[in-house]
């Protein structure tokens, strides 16, 4: 009788396990890469991010693990309406289980709400807003790669520690610029530095001569560029013209990507200090991966945003395989349980608020004479360990954090 009972219990257990074993919806894990393919952020992410996602699926060897994975993509054209339409449609009628990338903070925040309503996963690698893991955090959202707090702290603290203790800010006059300036000022002051002044510049202003003159007059050792994209490029190009770096001041780029440096040219960008969480030439692993990427990307080196998409998809698939389900919240919870480990970002983890913690690096742009090949632009100045690089969990104001 004991044997029969055991068999019965075993059978019952198996049956229960069978039903508890959640399904992969539609038998396919569908990954949707939603980013800017034609506008300002197309170089940062664009088709490169799609390539990165596909590489992650390949490297994960999904087929061998019994998973069917598909990658689709769309261009949100930097319009929140288009992005939310696509996101909704993907989830409602195309069975998309996770949305990747989404640069442009305004769009990212809109998509954040969509996934919250539809209960699907969202791994953001392109947007800067630290609200994604702060006031607007969601149990479905994971924020990889970077955010404004990390940039401000990484660059600010590291520079002050190496002697750059007087600052002047050229700030883009909108929320993002203000946030960057505010966060960096705080760090600078906390570490014993002084902020000598700042000037707020309208967005998309082309000519910075007037503001650079003011920065020169302040005699601050460091000129912090609290702006991004075209504004940063113009600031740097014109700073070179006015001989700012030659005059002994240094520029700190608070949000600079490899593609920006490529667009400015080393002769003008040399000496620029910036923070990044990924550089293709950092070590053998990143080099190997990047060579594979460049071969399929027309020779263009990967940016940290694209690397974040790769790492995010890899970790997502790991979680799906572990719990054999692609149910939004379950996968994200599993992602938070498993430590992250990939050749691009090294070891890290996903926090309760959705923030991914990994090491960050302080780089300086090389002189033209020091660069041996295209994209050979950075030299390492300092490594910022993961634990210090991102905003402390309790400071974010995320309702998920008790």
């Amino acid at each position: 009788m004991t044997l029969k009972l055991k068999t019965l219990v075993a059978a019952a257990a198996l049956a229960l396990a069978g039903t508890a074993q959640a399904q992969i919806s539609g038998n396919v894990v569908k990954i949707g890469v939603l980013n800017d393919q034609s506008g300002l952020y197309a170089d940062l992410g664009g088709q490169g991010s799609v390539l990165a996602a596909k590489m992650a699926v390949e490297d994960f060897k999904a087929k061998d693990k019994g998973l069917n994975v598909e990658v689709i993509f769309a261009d949100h054209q930097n319009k929140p309406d288009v992005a939310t339409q696509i996101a909704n449609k993907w989830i409602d009628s195309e069975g998309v289980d996770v949305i990747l990338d989404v640069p442009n903070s305004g769009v990212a925040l809109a998509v954040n709400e969509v996934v919250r309503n539809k209960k699907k996963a969202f791994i953001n690698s392109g947007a800067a807003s630290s609200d994604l893991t702060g006031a607007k955090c969601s149990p479905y959202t994971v924020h990889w790669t970077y955010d404004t707090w990390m940039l401000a702290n990484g660059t600010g603290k590291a520079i002050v520690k190496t002697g750059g203790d007087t600052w002047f800010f050229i700030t883009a006059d909108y929320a993002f610029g203000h946030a960057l300036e505010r966060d960096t000022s705080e760090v600078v002051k906390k570490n014993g530095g002084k902020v000598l002044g700042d000037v707020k510049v309208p967005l998309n202003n082309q000519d910075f001569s007037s503001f650079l003159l003011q920065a020169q007059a302040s005699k601050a050792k460091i000129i912090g560029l609290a702006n991004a994209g075209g504004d940063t490029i113009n600031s740097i190009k014109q700073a070179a013209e006015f001989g700012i770096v030659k005059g002994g001041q240094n520029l700190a780029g608070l949000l600079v990507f490899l593609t920006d440096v490529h667009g400015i040219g080393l002769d003008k960008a040399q000496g620029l200090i910036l923070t990044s969480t990924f550089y293709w030439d950092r070590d053998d692993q990143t080099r190997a991966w990047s060579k594979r990427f460049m071969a399929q990307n027309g020779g263009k080196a990967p940016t940290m945003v694209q690397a974040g998409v790769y790492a995010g998809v890899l970790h997502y698939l790991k979680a799906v395989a572990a719990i054999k389900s692609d149910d939004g919240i379950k996968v994200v919870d599993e992602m938070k349980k498993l430590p992250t480990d990939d050749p691009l970002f090294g070891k890290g983890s996903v926090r309760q608020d959705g923030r991914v913690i990994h090491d960050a690096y302080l780089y300086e742009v090389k002189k033209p004479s020091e660069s041996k090949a295209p994209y050979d632009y950075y030299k390492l100045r300092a490594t910022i360990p993961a634990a210090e690089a991102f905003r402390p969990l309790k400071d974010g104001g995320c309702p998920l954090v008790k």
Partner: protein
Amino acid sequence: MFDISVPALMGQLTVGLINGSFYALLSLGLAVIFGLLNIINFTHGAQYMMGAFVAYLLLEKTGLGYWWALVITPFIVGGLGVVIERTMIARLYKLDHLYGLLLTFGLALIIEGAFHHNYGSAGLPYSIPQSLQGVQNLGFMFLPFYRAWVIVASLAICLATWFVIERTKLGAYLRAATENPTLVQTFGINVPRMITLTYGAGVGLAALAGVFAAPIYQVSPQMGSSLIIVVFAVVVIGGMGSIMGSIVTGFGLGIIEGLTKYFYPEASSTVIFVIMAIVLMIRPQGLFGQR
């Protein structure tokens, strides 16, 4: 707010002058095309951008540097302008001006989209030519040589253009042709060809401004669209028929904007629109316009 130092103010005024000379040069092409041909050339920003890109490509593909670019680029882009005029714009002369605006707006979209597709948005590197690098210490500021060159060249080109149009026979024929084409044609002057060449010249001027910009501004597909609205404002304020109006307004605006950047930087992008709105309400034909 008023605790400024004289050196700082002088520095800002100089910078304002530099920017003004740039605005003047940029609006010159637009003023020529509207003033003489009554075409509202919205493609102007895209043609300016093409000028910068052609300069970059000349350097990349043929090794021809800045000085060559200054001479060659206006002809290349101007030539393209001639093609556009012959094939498309000429058909709209009998219609309302606004169709010309819409057509050139569409063309601008096509050109910018195409460049975006091919070159992305991060921009391409272009450097100041060796001979113009470096700064001159003026005491109250460091003035880059390149910027001084821009002021001088811009003044020269602006005055030369104004002279040709207002003081030479060619200019007189042109002005007559736009006011009364049939009459002028009876004098044996090929009016359509003059119009085409004038459009080409206006476009060439836009491209020339693009070459001037390439070493100091980001060379990217959207560089034109950021400026086009400002340039329109300059031409409208100056008076849409008046070359001198655009030149004076360009310089004046540069200085006003420069002062705003010093005293109230956040408003420096809107100040021009405020001025435009005011001028249009008080004196709709612009400061120097005739109608």
